[in-house]
């Protein structure tokens, strides 16, 4: 079952050929997708041949085949992870019942909403990143950007398949709408706020793939637990691809820090002005980018108290991160969880029913995972013999969703006055000046083996190819 049928127009491992109506519907959607890619995908990339990995099956031997392909000819398709016979729902009110292979009527609206919201982020990020190819710091990085882009495209396919197969006419309409919304479009924006911000430079791109794609990982992990088996299986396979995106982010930021640390040691100064004059990104600017991307991303987990989150969990639509590895009752009724609230100029923890706090639970799991990676960046500084350290800001910092939205909190977790916020905001979040400086560094370097001055080369290439391999062939 894991073999992918490449003889069909739409590669798939779901026996698409046996469902003529579905096959026709998706074959009609396919040209619209390619049109969307041409219009909103990576700029001026049409004739480039990119060293991409393509899945030829979902088992370990076959899922990473490498070769030079034009992106619009990438074999986007429908791949589900292997199913488990007689899989049982393992959390919520339906715990112990057989997992659903189709959508129960009473959960149709909620499931559709979950799938559309997840699906909407995939093309959105491609749109956000479409200009970046013009300012790539190396051919290696250009290839990684395009790999991320085509896989986001495939993730859209994964969600569209579920919509077409399980949600009838509503689903087909939603699938069309996914190609019609545009990131940042005033009249028809993408659903989530963070996905309407442009990704203006490569530091933002690496921060986005580190922090925001990690949100994707946690959402996908939670959905991989779903009682709706097709959703669980499709998100499981998406997670394998998502890992690459986080690698691009984590190693990208790490290489920038490595280059900056080298400059600090060469110049024997951490003076921001001198470092900027030397053409590298100073650590305080990197810290402000972390503050921004971290805070915007943790908003994506939603309100800290949410009855929707409780409903999604109890009805089995969405589990917790690593639900199967937790040893509680997996029903959570009567249990509590601590969330933050601001009262009289201070932050307090308050106990709320855990079911209502599940967004916060997922957010806290995410924070733990994010912090671990930031600590790995600190090891780069440590190795360079520098005392400087980077950190993630307090989780109440710069929040726009939930009980903490509107409360002004410093990165170290103090509630501050409006006046102090205004005075300090340029120390805490990237200023127009920071962004202009980072943008000024963005020149295009695409000779094989050459790297822009502000970023160190990677320790190894892709798929054991050398770092100076021709990862992209220009027409």
């Amino acid at each position, binding site marked *: 079952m894991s*073999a992918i049928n490449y003889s069909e127009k739409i590669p798939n491992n779901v026996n698409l050929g046996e469902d003529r109506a579905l096959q026709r519907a998706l074959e009609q959607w396919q040209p619209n997708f390619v049109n969307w890619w041409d219009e909103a995908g990576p700029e001026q990339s049409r004739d480039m041949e990119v060293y991409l990995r393509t899945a030829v099956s979902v*088992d*370990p*031997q076959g*899922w*990473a085949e490498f070769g030079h392909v034009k992106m619009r000819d990438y074999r986007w398709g429908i791949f589900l992870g*292997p*199913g*488990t*016979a007689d899989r049982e729902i393992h959390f919520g009110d339906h715990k112990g019942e057989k997992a659903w292979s189709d959508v129960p009527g009473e959960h149709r609206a909620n499931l559709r909403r979950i799938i559309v919201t997840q699906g909407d982020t995939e093309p959105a990020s491609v749109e956000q990143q479409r200009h970046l190819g013009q300012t790539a710091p190396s051919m290696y990085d250009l290839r990684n950007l395009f790999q991320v882009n085509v896989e986001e495209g495939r993730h859209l396919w994964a969600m569209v398949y579920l919509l077409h197969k399980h949600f009838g006419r509503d689903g087909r309409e939603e699938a069309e709408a996914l190609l019609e919304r545009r990131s940042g479009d005033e009249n028809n924006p993408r659903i989530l706020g963070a996905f309407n911000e442009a990704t203006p430079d490569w530091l933002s791109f690496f921060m986005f793939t580190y922090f925001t794609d990690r949100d994707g*990982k946690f959402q996908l992990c939670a959905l991989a637990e779903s009682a709706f088996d097709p959703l669980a299986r499709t998100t499981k396979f998406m*997670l*394998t691809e*998502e*890992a*690459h995106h*986080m*690698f691009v982010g*984590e*190693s990208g930021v790490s290489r920038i820090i490595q280059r900056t640390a080298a400059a600090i040691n060469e110049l024997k100064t951490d003076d921001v002005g001198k470092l900027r004059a030397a053409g590298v990104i100073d650590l305080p600017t990197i810290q402000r980018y972390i503050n921004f991307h971290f805070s915007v991303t943790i908003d994506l987990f939603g309100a800290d108290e949410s009855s929707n989150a409780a409903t999604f969990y109890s009805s089995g639509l969405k589990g917790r991160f690593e639900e199967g590895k937790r040893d509680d009752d997996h029903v959570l009724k009567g249990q509590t969880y601590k969330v933050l609230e601001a009262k009289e100029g201070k932050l307090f923890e308050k106990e709320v029913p855990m079911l209502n706090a599940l967004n916060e639970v997922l957010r806290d799991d995410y924070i733990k*995972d994010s912090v*671990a*990676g930031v600590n*790995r960046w600190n*090891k780069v500084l440590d190795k360079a013999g520098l005392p400087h350290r980077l950190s993630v800001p307090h989780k109440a910092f710069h929040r726009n969703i939930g009980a903490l939205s509107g409360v002004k909190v410093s990165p170290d977790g103090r509630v501050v006055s409006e006046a102090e916020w205004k005075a300090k905001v340029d120390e805490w979040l990237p200023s127009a000046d920071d962004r202009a400086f980072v943008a000024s560094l963005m020149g295009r370097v695409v000779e094989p083996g050459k790297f822009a001055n502000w970023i160190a080369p990677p*320790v*190894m290439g*892709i798929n*054991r190819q050398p770092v100076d391999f021709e990862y992209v062939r220009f027409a």
Partner: protein
Amino acid sequence: MGASDSAVIKQHLIDPEICIRCNTCEATCPVGAITHDDRNYVVDASRCNLCMDCIAPCPTGSIDNWRNMPRVIAYPVAEQMLWDELPPELTPLQLADAGVSADAMAAQTPPVSLPASAAQPDAGAVVFRGADYGASVPPWSAAHAYTNLYGPKAQIKSVTATVTGNVRVTEVGREYDTHHIVLDFGAMPFPVLEGQSIGIVPPGHDAHGRVHHPRQYSIASPRNGERPGYNNLSLTIKRVLADHQGRPVRGAASNYMCDLKVGDTVQVTGPFGASFLMPNHPRSNIVMICTGTGSAPMRAMTEWRRRLRASAKFEGGKLMLFFGARTQQELPYFGPLQNLPRDFIDTNFAFSRATDGPRRYVQDVMRERAADLAPLLADHNTFIYVCGLKSMEEGVVLALRDVARDAGQDWESLAVRFQSQGRLHLETY
């Protein structure tokens, strides 16, 4: 066969400086060898079976690190979890201190990375490593192999098979004891190809109270069953009564298997292996070199070709077998092998402890047969399979090299072709 050789392993390690903790390797590993804590992802050397499933899905390349280590001092999981960076490779001096000879190092398990020595003809400076020449891709005419249908990460963890036969295939009354065991899968799917292996999960727990991990055995029967048309397969299992140092120890899995009675059931995982597969095109030649129970895949391939020949619908190429054992009495399947027609298979035995002759190893016999082996090496329809104890690997590949060179062939380019075209397969343990 030096018993201490297997005391050295190629230990699989993950580079903590490059790893991003994405969990892909742990989710992929079919034998549960990869684990993690808050700090590092690590590989348990006692569980890793070098199947390489984790290599391709790793987004970072951190997974692809190997160290030559004496098995007894292999880095334990707890130690790996404390690392900030990989330890350096042990120096020959340190290895010697640990009682490891240079010979043992040369007979090492293959690294997966493209071999440096195969690419560099100036082998003078480089240790010759037979393992570096093995292919990781199957022959072009191989049939599609199903893998990992049952295992820790598959939807069904193991499948039950029933023992329908258990016979001794070496002479009775010796201290060694090799069994031919037939397993039947009933109605459960277990499609296999010659050259693949399966895992057997011994019941019960080990000394540490943990469930035994599966042991891998090569399949000794062809694709359509030990008995044609039946959903069964056979294994060749030697009862382990001593460890590599010769100290008495009863191998949990091999003794369990050899003691099975007809009608008993066993838990099976697999199938495993997608490169050590036979060619299926007409006139393809197969050269088989094996020792002891390494004969299992050779029996499978030979039997499949024999059945094809009996059908008279397939024009096979040449089959050449080099089969080594300490003595004729220890040689599994000795009788049946003698009965195969000469024009079907060219069989050559090598006995290293025969009382009535000098010590001869398979590589010695290969050199003696150079006149017939050289034309086969020059033929792109020739596929070579080596299976048996790890210590034979180097000698066999060196013999191939000498046979090729003596026939005026350029060994390095030949070796690269054999490797890249999936025509030289090494499976040693």
